[in-house]
């Protein structure tokens, strides 16, 4: 093999591998049931998924099971993900959070989200158009700036919604605050996040 051919082959192989950096390629491989693609998916989103689930359930053994459940659910439902549109991360994180909240609600004896609603809220089509690198790079700063604009009261409520899956009525009961106050604070917090993230997520 001549030197130039070797270089061409090396460039072609390297380009092929580097294209996999894009989630579109990864989705395609997952849709073709390529088990190696699952390993890449885990490399990209495993740590974040683990962190979210552990933060919610606060139990390592349970978190291990739920990470497993999350990735297998993604594996089994990725056929509905449009590989031309967007990054996988937001969908994977949402599936992870829903699994963890579902667990939390079941052990606390709270009503679980209906399977129908859950199916609809985490359907891959809901995450069509997620910007590439949404959970990395410059996005981290935009998101952090948005979160830091929340005052302590607002942040507590947002964390109760995200990490404990509490409704506004449940928050009011937990914090022993009037429902109206909770609703006003939650609405204000979400408006801040929406304004800060507005154009970026649109």
């Amino acid at each position, binding site marked *: 093999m001549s030197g130039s051919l070797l270089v061409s082959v090396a460039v072609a192989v390297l380009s092929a591998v580097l294209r996999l950096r894009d989630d579109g390629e990864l989705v395609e491989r997952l849709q073709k049931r390529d088990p190696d693609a699952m390993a890449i998916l885990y490399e990209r989103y495993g*740590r974040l998924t683990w962190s979210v689930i552990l933060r919610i359930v606060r139990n390592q053994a349970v978190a291990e099971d739920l990470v497993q459940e999350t990735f297998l659910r993604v594996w089994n439902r990725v056929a509905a993900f449009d590989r031309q549109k967007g990054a996988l991360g937001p969908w994977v994180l949402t599936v992870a959070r829903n699994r963890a909240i579902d667990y939390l609600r079941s052990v606390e004896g709270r009503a679980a989200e209906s399977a129908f609603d859950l199916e609809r809220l985490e359907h891959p089509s809901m995450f069509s158009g997620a910007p590439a690198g949404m959970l990395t790079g410059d996005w981290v700063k935009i998101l952090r700036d948005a979160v830091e604009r929340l005052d302590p009261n607002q942040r507590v409520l947002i964390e109760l919604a995200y990490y404990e899956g509490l409704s*506004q009525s449940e928050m009011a009961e937990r914090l022993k605050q009037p429902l109206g106050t909770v609703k006003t604070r939650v609405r204000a917090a979400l408006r801040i996040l929406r304004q800060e993230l507005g154009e970026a997520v649109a």
Partner: protein
Amino acid sequence: MTDEDLTHEEMHDLYELYALGVLDQVERDEISRHLGSGCAVCLGAVRRASMQNAGVLGILTPDSTPPGRVEARLREGVGLRARGWTWAAWAAAAACLVAMTWAGLKSWRISHELDATRQEVRRTDLELARVRAVLDVLNAPGTRAVSFGEEKQMPPRGSVFVNPQKGVVLIASRLPQLSTGWCYEMWLIPKTGAPKPAGVFWATEAGSAVHTLAGPLDVASTGAVAVTVEPGNGSPAPTSKPIIVASL
């Protein structure tokens, strides 16, 4: 639309909660009905809220390292039981040119290194942001420092830094190790009234912790900053005696 129906604007204020699955039944049902009618604007808004939620979740969540066995279990789950090759693969590999193999392996390694680097960049970004939040308070004009624990022989010890515009930073060492299912929770103790929750945190294995509460703070009406040990992910009101009290 009846008088009791939510307006479009009211619904837009609820889409993040709807996407999180935490709306109360009545509102959830009404929004589901509305989306079921095919309102493209609202479907787009819910999609946007779903992605925003994922982003906020990513940024709010403390970084943590999964045990290696999590990946191993996952590999088994999708049939990646063995990393070794079959005889056919070996035969095919033997037939490949050495240069081709070298190029493939090299590029594969680069890919993995890129993955690791990207993860590292994310961790570094998060750490930098945390450090920046701490420095914001420490360097701001008007920041007051209050030490705690010096008079005690037993842990913990440290300092609280308070700034009316930037917030509070707690730096503590010699914190006792907590069992699984417990956390430390910081409180702002007003001169009158009930303690206000100021976020939960966990200590390192060495027993140290840095916790930041960013945002404006009414220092004049705050009598102290305290820390208690709380179950789960924290409590709305303290349930135990404070292990740290820094009087302002």
